């Protein structure tokens, strides 16, 4: 068999294996997304069905003057930035500490898995009831016991944002911790020996050896955490439902409420499309980094 026909045969085989999944993915994701973009150009309000019809960019023009949209965009930014920074900072700190623990490391790793495997909606419900509920939750009990008073963690607009950030951080910091712990454990120990002989202090060792070596892992954690934060929905829905008012209404919740509570699906589609563009930019960033690796 000639080389060329072998290559062609391989290509045909590859296509035969890949095509079914490819077509299924196009049908289940790409086409619905195009439909989303289409519905974002429609006047599609289920409470006023007689007003339906093509609206062009009307929904997008409306976004500009919609204070709730801008607040939602700002909240998405704050929520994403805060949760990602907190997760990476706490996760890295803990991983560096735990690297020095010999006995019991396995126990910590198992404990870290618990929040990750929990359904976000259950995490939100647990926090809403057992942890943060006034007169009931453990945090309220602790703040009172410490003489700090009682707070309505999910009912006060300022505190509610802090609370949903805390819930997300609680659930996903173990992710950052486990990944960074794994990449720290994979570093060659003789590197540190050399540095110690050079009389490098712990800070210098961290800054000049550890950090550059685990940078790829940190970058991956940051991007994956960003994507999760950008699609966060269930935990906030369970804990605050986006409220009080619209205090914790990130774009996901705004698009959901517009489409399924207020039944203004055309406008909801426009908000979802904006979110889509943001998320795809992050995904593109991840791929560019993976390729350059």
């Amino acid at each position, binding site marked *: 068999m000639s080389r060329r026909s072998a290559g062609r045969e391989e290509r045909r085989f590859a296509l035969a294996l890949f095509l079914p999944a490819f077509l299924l993915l196009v049908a289940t994701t790409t086409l619905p997304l195009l439909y*989303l973009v289409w519905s974002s150009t429609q006047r599609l309000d289920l409470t006023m069905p007689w007003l339906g019809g093509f609206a062009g960019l009307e929904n997008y023009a409306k976004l500009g003057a919609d204070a709730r949209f801008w607040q939602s965009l700002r909240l998405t930014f704050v929520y994403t930035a805060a949760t990602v920074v907190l997760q990476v900072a706490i996760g890295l700190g803990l991983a560096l500490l735990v690297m020095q623990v010999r006995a019991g490391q396995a126990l910590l790793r198992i404990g870290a898995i618990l929040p990750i495997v929990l*359904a976000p909606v259950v995490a939100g419900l647990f926090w809403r009831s057992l942890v943060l509920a006034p007169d*009931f939750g453990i945090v309220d009990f602790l703040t009172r016991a410490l003489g700090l008073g009682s707070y309505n963690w999910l009912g006060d607009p300022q505190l509610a944002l802090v609370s949903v950030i805390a819930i997300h951080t609680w659930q996903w910091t173990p992710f950052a911790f486990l990944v960074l712990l794994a990449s720290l454990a994979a570093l060659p120990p003789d590197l540190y020996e050399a540095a110690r002989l050079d009389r490098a202090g712990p800070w210098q060792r961290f800054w000049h050896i550890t950090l550059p070596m685990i940078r790829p892992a940190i970058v991956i954690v940051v991007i994956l955490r960003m994507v999760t934060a950008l699609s966060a929905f269930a935990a906030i829905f369970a804990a605050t439902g986006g409220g009080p008012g619209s205090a914790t209404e990130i774009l996901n919740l705004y698009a959901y409420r517009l489409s399924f509570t207020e039944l203004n699906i055309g406008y909801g589609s426009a908000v979802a499309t904006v979110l889509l563009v943001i998320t795809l930019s992050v995904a593109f960033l991840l791929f560019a980094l993976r390729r350059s690796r």
Partner: protein
Amino acid sequence: MRRAVLLVVSVAMLVVWVFPVLWGLVTSVKTERDVLAYPPTIVFEPTAVNYHDVFFGGASIVPNLVSSLVVSGLTTALTMLFAIPAAYALARLDLPFRRATGFWVLATQMLPPVGLVIPYFLLLRRAGWTDTYQGLVLVYLTFALPFAIWLLVSYFEEIPREMEEAALLDRAGRLRALWYVILPQAKGGIAVTLIFVFLNSWNEFLFAVVLGGNTVRTVTVAMFNFISLEQTQWGRLAAAAMVGMAPVIVLGLIAQKHIVKGLTLGAVKGGGRR
């Protein structure tokens, strides 16, 4: 001194991570009176009444467990059926536009679910598929399939190339080589992928709450049965959460060593120091 700091931080972190679940477990075996006691009681007489209600009471979650099992099971089976050959082609074969295709699969995996739930709401309603198993499984494929493909690619890439070259020289036929040589090599990776797909499907909420209904109501949606404007049935909610989350906690512990790889889609290897 340093050992003491280490110990305190480690214990504190374990407590914070484990606490909500542990406290949920404690709450689930409390009577109504003990649940509402303030300050919270630690010493009390445990009761199984909440579990009894959750299984056999008026708001039994057994039908919801069945719904979750059917949706997650079907999603996992279909996903693996399509993902395994696709991932192999992407990892090992001369696929046209491999890079671009890889990016596209990855981007699909990251789509915000709220962007999909709106078109699916319109499309499934038109097809009469809201509140049906086939409708929900179709939607679940949108996150399960790209995730599985991407994770499996990283496992297929680990198989030594000599293995398949030997099989090919044998003129065994490519499909047979895939079946008899490659798949057994990737058994572990396939099992891990299967677990993660099932886990993600089980935990899904947004699609289930918008596109499900009275026939197909998964266990994550059913949690809200115990919450109403007037009052929350804390004990039953906790028991339902414990029962609903037991499968994923068990699966998570089984896949413990592979969780880092699973979570980073194969970009970071290893499970820490053993």
